[in-house]
């Protein structure tokens, strides 16, 4: 293999790694957007949904030996229940919400989730079987894990379900109406409280899916929530907060940039790369690369 070819193979390899992570960031970002659109809240516990999904799936498949599909469904249901409980017990009862108070409440929930996860699953990281073979596939010299294909496929399914839900179902349209103008939606007879609860349920569900599909490649432990949440938020901001198609593109882009940075600059600083991008976007263009600057002026940053 000549050096130019070797370089190309490296590039493709980094690219695959980036897409694998990027898909997860995309899903976390979609979770952020759902709650943000319904409530204007940034949920600091978003990353914990991913961790819970991953750890629950580990228990169900590795300890209880349930079939993957059944474990998948049960895990998502479990995390959805956690999301709904979070909304019912901590967001819904707050009568005089200030931004600071809501931020601290979601932080409190993330601390509790983290503490509970440590209690039940311990401090170690957990291994989980890949969905299919763990044997990498060869792609012109570069390798790709079958799990990465699973991740990409499931992201596509989630996006398809998302588009279908918000464009072709009544509930989805009601949720969109609520996010555009809550008062008007309420006047039209939509139960906005229920929509808020639903947004937490869906957001938790997406987080769970992300956790389930990534765990075979990264080995989940209870501390990962904060970083996953931050990078997912980075993707959400990069794509324009509230804009879910933007979030998917931005998530994948962020993952790829991170992998390229880790490959060509320094793998030690890999985690910092996505965060530096997040800060730059926040400072220079808080409406995101896909958001219009016109819309940006109307929003409060």
């Amino acid at each position, binding site marked *: 293999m000549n050096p130019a070819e070797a370089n190309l193979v490296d590039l493709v390899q980094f690219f695959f790694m980036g897409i694998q992570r990027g898909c997860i960031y995309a899903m976390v970002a979609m979770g952020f957007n759902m709650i943000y659109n319904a409530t204007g809240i*940034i949920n600091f516990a978003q990353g914990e949904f991913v961790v819970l999904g991953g750890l629950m799936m580990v228990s169900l498949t590795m300890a209880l030996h349930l079939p993957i599909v059944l474990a998948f469904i049960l895990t998502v249901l479990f995390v959805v229940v956690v999301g709904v409980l979070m909304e019912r017990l901590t967001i819904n009862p*707050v009568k005089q919400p200030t931004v600071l108070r809501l931020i601290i409440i979601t932080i409190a929930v993330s601390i509790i989730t983290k503490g509970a996860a440590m209690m039940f699953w311990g401090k170690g990281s957990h291994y989980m079987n890949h969905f299919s073979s763990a044997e990498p596939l060869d792609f012109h010299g570069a390798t790709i894990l079958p799990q990465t294909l699973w991740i990409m496929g499931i992201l596509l399914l989630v996006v398809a379900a998302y588009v279908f839900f918000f464009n072709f179902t009544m509930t989805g349209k009601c949720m969109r109406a609520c996010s555009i103008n809550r008062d008007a939606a309420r006047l039209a007879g939509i139960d906005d409280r229920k929509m808020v609860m639903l947004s937490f349920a869906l957001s938790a569900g997406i987080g769970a899916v992300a956790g389930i599909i990534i765990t075979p490649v990264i080995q989940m432990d209870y501390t990962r929530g904060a970083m996953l949440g931050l990078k997912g938020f980075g993707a959400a901001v990069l794509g324009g907060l509230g804009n879910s198609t933007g979030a998917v593109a931005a998530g994948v882009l962020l993952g790829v940039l991170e992998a390229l940075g880790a490959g060509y600059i320094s793998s030690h600083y890999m985690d910092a790369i996505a965060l530096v991008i997040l*800060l730059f976007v926040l400072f220079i263009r808080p409406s995101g690369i896909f958001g219009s600057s016109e819309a940006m002026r109307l929003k409060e940053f």
Partner: protein
Amino acid sequence: MKGKNSAGLIALILAVILLPYIITNDYYLGALIFAGLNSLACIGLCMLMGYAGQISIGHGAFVAIGAYGSGILTASFAWSPWLAMFCSLIMAVVVAIVLGIPALRLKGHYLAMATLGFASIVHVVSVAAVDLTGGPSGIVNIPRPKLFGYLLQTDTQYFYFVWAVVIIGIYCAFNLIDSRVGRGLRALHGSEDAAASLGIPVTWYKVQVFILSAVYASVSGSLYAYYVNYIDPGPFDISYSVLLVTMVAVGGLHNIWGALTGAIVLSLLPEFLSFVSDYLRFFGIEYQQDYDTLVYGLILLFIMLFLPEGIFPSLRGAVAGIIALFKKTPRMSGQNSGPIAGRRFSGHDK
């Protein structure tokens, strides 16, 4: 400084002087030193969050800058601890300016995420920049500083030293709050537009209070490094930044005393829990230190849901109630002292 704040400060000074005579166990004295270090960072954070209304979930990073600056300059370059502390303070100021100018244009959730991201970056760097920070194994052999020719060797000495700095910090904070600058900060919390219309340079003021809070955090970090004599990235991950916010919020955002209360209570909580765990075991409950995180989270959630002003106002109310109870004479029936005292308290402090 208002009368009862001065009274509170004098009471605190007396308590600090007396405590080492009551608590002779070095372990508990050590816990109180850590409480003092956290208090210092929380007082700064309280001015930023409670008075100026700007959230930061990244102040652990400034503590880390203070700790690493002092650690590296003393252990690797043999500088005097005082000079090292001053230089790391300057570094914290520079970082606060560079971060603060763009970040403080953001509001609410965005500012929170930006500061959290910043703290995360600093943590990643502290682990990865092995040549500078020693990486995961950290820096050892950090010396204690000398004060008036005395090396602050014993825990009692260091206890007095740290709490003297805390008291100076509180003193400065109270002076600032009742000044032209402090009123400007509180004003921009109330309404940025109105503050600007009265000539207050809103952005610059936010950056100034951000710098000030970074200075408090950085000094806290330096003193931490000198006390434990070694540092590694472990204590400075983002959960430490979150913990600082938790302390301020649990104690009471809108009052320096609240931040102090929160810092002390939550710093001593692990000791309290391990103390209680002996009794819990008696009832067949096996409490482990690992559950502390969960307890912190539950306390924070409880406070935010039911006492959003923090525990300090309730504590103060209770104290005022007890005082009223003692003052109560049959004729006055306590009506004069109780409620009015309470009202006077709540009217001024915000």
